[in-house]
């Protein structure tokens, strides 16, 4: 058997095996449903969420926050990263504060955002923006700083204008690092959106999880974990796919 088909077999067999262990554990030890539901219960709970349409408005809400937060956060991160990447002096002044802001755990900032921006959409989007912003900024700075010196010489020889240099050499050259930032940002955006809804929402996947947890609907809670994980993977893969398409030259 070739390595490839062997790998495919493992990829299929491993989750099936895990589900089998899970299922036997629940059956053999007669674990109560509200502590650990059987795989079948989780499956049916997920199915029910989609069949009766409960999930759609929540999913739409979460996706909206992710999209808005990721969009605004990336734009701000790119803009500031561009300014700082082009001006090392400014970066030396502003850098430490940004670094401090980044190291502060966002979950500690979340209540502050709620205090400032209320319990609504704004504070949720602000939280996502605060999470997306930094990795994109860091990626942009790194990308602009790591343009090969030789490309600068080429620009000198061809006597490129500042604008040509930027558009034709520096920005394309920085795209890989910017995308590395965007990928981290995309994952952070998903976590941030669910965290924000968890804390302050009356809607969204995060809220649905809180609801399932506080009402002891363990199968539904497990279903939500599954769905949010899949959502995270999907969003990451979308950005990664975009990267692969844009950076096919690598």
């Amino acid at each position, binding site marked *: 058997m070739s390595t490839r088909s062997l790998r495919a077999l493992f990829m299929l067999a491993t989750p099936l095996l895990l589900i089998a262990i899970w299922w036997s554990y629940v059956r053999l030890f007669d674990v109560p449903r509200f502590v650990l539901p059987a795989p079948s219960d989780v499956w049916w709970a997920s199915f029910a969420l989609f069949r009766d349409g409960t999930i759609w408005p929540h999913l739409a809400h979460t996706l909206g926050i992710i999209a808005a937060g990721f969009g605004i956060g990336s734009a701000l991160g790119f803009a500031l990263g561009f300014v700082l990447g082009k001006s090392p002096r400014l970066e030396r002044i502003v850098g430490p504060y940004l670094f401090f802001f980044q190291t502060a755990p966002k979950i500690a900032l979340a209540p502050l955002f709620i205090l400032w921006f209320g319990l609504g959409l704004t504070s949720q989007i602000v939280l996502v923006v605060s999470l997306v912003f930094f990795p994109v900024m860091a990626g942009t700075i790194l990308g602009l700083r790591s343009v*090969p010196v*030789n*490309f600068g*010489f080429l620009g000198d*020889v*061809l*006597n490129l204008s500042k604008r040509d240099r930027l558009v034709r050499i520096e920005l394309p050259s920085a795209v890989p690092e910017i995308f590395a930032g965007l990928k981290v940002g995309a994952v952070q955006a998903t976590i941030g959106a669910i965290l924000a809804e968890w804390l302050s929402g009356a809607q969204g996947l995060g809220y649905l999880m809180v609801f399932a947890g506080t009402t002891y609907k363990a199968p539904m809670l497990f279903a939500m974990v599954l769905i949010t994980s899949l959502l995270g993977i999907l969003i990451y893969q979308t950005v990664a796919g975009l990267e692969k398409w844009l950076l096919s*030259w*690598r």
Partner: protein
Amino acid sequence: MRQIGVQSRNLKQQSEPSALVGVDSLTKVYRTREGSKVEALSPVTLDVHYGEFLSLIGPSGCGKSTLLRLLAGLEEPTDGTIRWRDGAPSRGTDIGFVFQEPVLLPWLSIHDNVRFPLDVFGVARAEANARATDMLALVGLKDFGRALPKELSGGMRQRASIARALVYRPRLVLMDEPFGALDLLTRDRMNDELLRIKAETSATVVFVTHSIDEAVYLSDRVAVMSPRPGRISALHTLDLGSDRSEMLKDTPDFHRWLSLLRRELR
């Protein structure tokens, strides 16, 4: 300043009507961060003739690259002048520069890399495409225009970079050890390619190398440079004819020049 006076007298003997560019008593002094001065180029006087292949040869630190950068207008001389016969070159369009590394933009195809200068200089797209295609054929990369730089070997990448330096028909092509990073066999092949390309474009080339073989094989004239401070210690016109091929390397004349230059560089 006294030194410059001595060199100027030499200039009068050297100046010929066929000079494309005349370098007169050129000096370059760098200041280190501690404030001390480093003389990279003590007065250098040299003419570059139309259509010639001139090699600058010498050990590291003899100012070969500095002289090249001054000719390219990338740096200002501390003293002395560079006179162009047909008026000062406009930076960019008049000078072709080939680096030791190919310096191709990895996100552009080989064709687009060669077309890159034409795009920057605002040449119409159709003409730019045609010229890039012609130039790729000239350097033997006709079938590789759509390839990405990473898909080509080191020698092929360097050919593309030569094509990029020639595509806008510069008045002077400067090459800074373009084959220094290649293995010996590829290097030999690239030397033959370069001779052929040079013959077909009748470009004027100033070529920096520290390989004596390469300098003798390629050049019409060889300027020997010595370090600290960098200056031209000898200038030779090689009497090896214009028909260069592998066979030349077995002739006594070729070896005479090799041993002469080797002695001078010692």
